[in-house]
């Protein structure tokens, strides 16, 4: 199972990467894409939307099922990956290179609440 050490994770199978500008990129883990199967549709949030940690924020649909993607922390959606509309299969081919949305974390949002690779891996077994 591919789990980059540099990323943070949630128990609901999102990965989170802190960008140089302080925003957080959010995607789904290799485990999630493998369990869901080939992606055929992605529904992304509207930029500007305020979310709480744990809010359903995007939807990924595979040949098999629809699955919510949750906001890892509270904040504002500042960008979405529009390239996914025409090529949702990128989530399967390159799960950690394919972000879904970027979040500007709310004041006081605590990144240390997220899981590191080892803790996420533990939750999978």
């Amino acid at each position, binding site marked *: 199972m591919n789990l980059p050490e540099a990323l943070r994770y949630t128990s609901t199978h999102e990965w989170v990467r802190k960008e140089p500008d302080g925003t957080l990129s959010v995607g789904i883990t290799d485990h999630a894409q493998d369990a869901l*199967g*080939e992606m*055929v*549709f992605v*529904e992304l949030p509207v930029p500007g939307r305020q979310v709480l940690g744990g809010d359903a924020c995007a*939807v990924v*649909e595979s*040949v*098999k*099922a*629809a699955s919510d993607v949750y906001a890892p922390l509270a904040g504002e959606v500042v960008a979405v990956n529009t390239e996914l*509309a025409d090529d949702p299969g990128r989530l399967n081919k390159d799960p950690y290179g394919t972000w879904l949305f970027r979040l500007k974390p709310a004041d006081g949002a605590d990144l240390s609440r997220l899981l590191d690779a080892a803790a996420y891996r533990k939750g999978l077994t």
Partner: protein
Amino acid sequence: MRRTPLIAEHRAAGAKLTEFAGWEMPLHYGSQIEEHHAVRRDAGVFDTSHMLALDVEGAAARGFLRHALANDVAKLERPGSWLYSCLLAEDGGILDDLIAYFLGGSRWRLVLNAATADTDLAWLERLRPAGVELRARRDLAMLAVQGPRAREKFQAAFPGLRERDDAFFAPTGYTGEDGFELLLPAADAPDAWRRLLAAGVRPCGLGARDTLRLEAGLMLYGQDMDAAVTPLECGLAWTLDLGAGRDFVGRQALAARAPRFQSLGLVLETRGVLRAHQAVHGEHGEGVVTSGSFSPTMQASIALARLPTESRPGERVQVAVRERRLEARVVKPPFVRRGRILVSKENA
């Protein structure tokens, strides 16, 4: 979980396995979309050994099947000929759908769904008169070889093979493509599978099987139909043989039971994916999606839906997809047959 004689072959081919009706079956071998395309454009093979081949034999077998099945096996005069039929309860509800093959003489073979095999068997055992023997052929494996190049590649894999008593071919399938189904002794199945793969036939799992049958407008038992609906309510009126003088199980109830709804196709006109159980709103009232998915051939979402009897192809409906209502167009299935898209994807 039960396993077919091909479980080791599935593992060797890299299958992602899943539970289906108590059986451990391949969902896909890496890409169900590629498997789907292989069947539409070339050739694919499915392990369908989880389905039950039930041999029906004896002097009274023909009369028994004419009574038990809603379609009439009297039409089958040539050995190897076949028909599709529903197995009905007394109230006209569908207990299963099946294919009946005439093997010649007083021998017949039914192929039943895995999930309903046990209840079908109990039901048929109850209806069975003296002079009919039912024999569950769990000693056989079943392969479906499907696609425009299925025959050609099969012949390359088995040069000179002739049909014989222990290798039975039927020109049937569940994909909307040319091809056939092959029943053979379980012990011979792994070798046959390996030969087919070596001839360039792609192994295909249940995932591709489902999108192929949906594109072909073929109903899935337990999803598009069940004991609560009649053939008249799910697009299977054509499978009823209402010829005079035959009293089959469920016939009287069907005559007295007006259809409450019908089954038609939907094509989603926006991005998104239709799924079973989504509510449908239209000018004639409410309906529900019974099977929905993404069509790899059409690159759009399609569905089979239970709609009011007044609904007609060409109408627009709205489907509740999460918190939104998405526009869809009503069409008459099939969506795709023999590699060709039969319904227009764009606004008609």
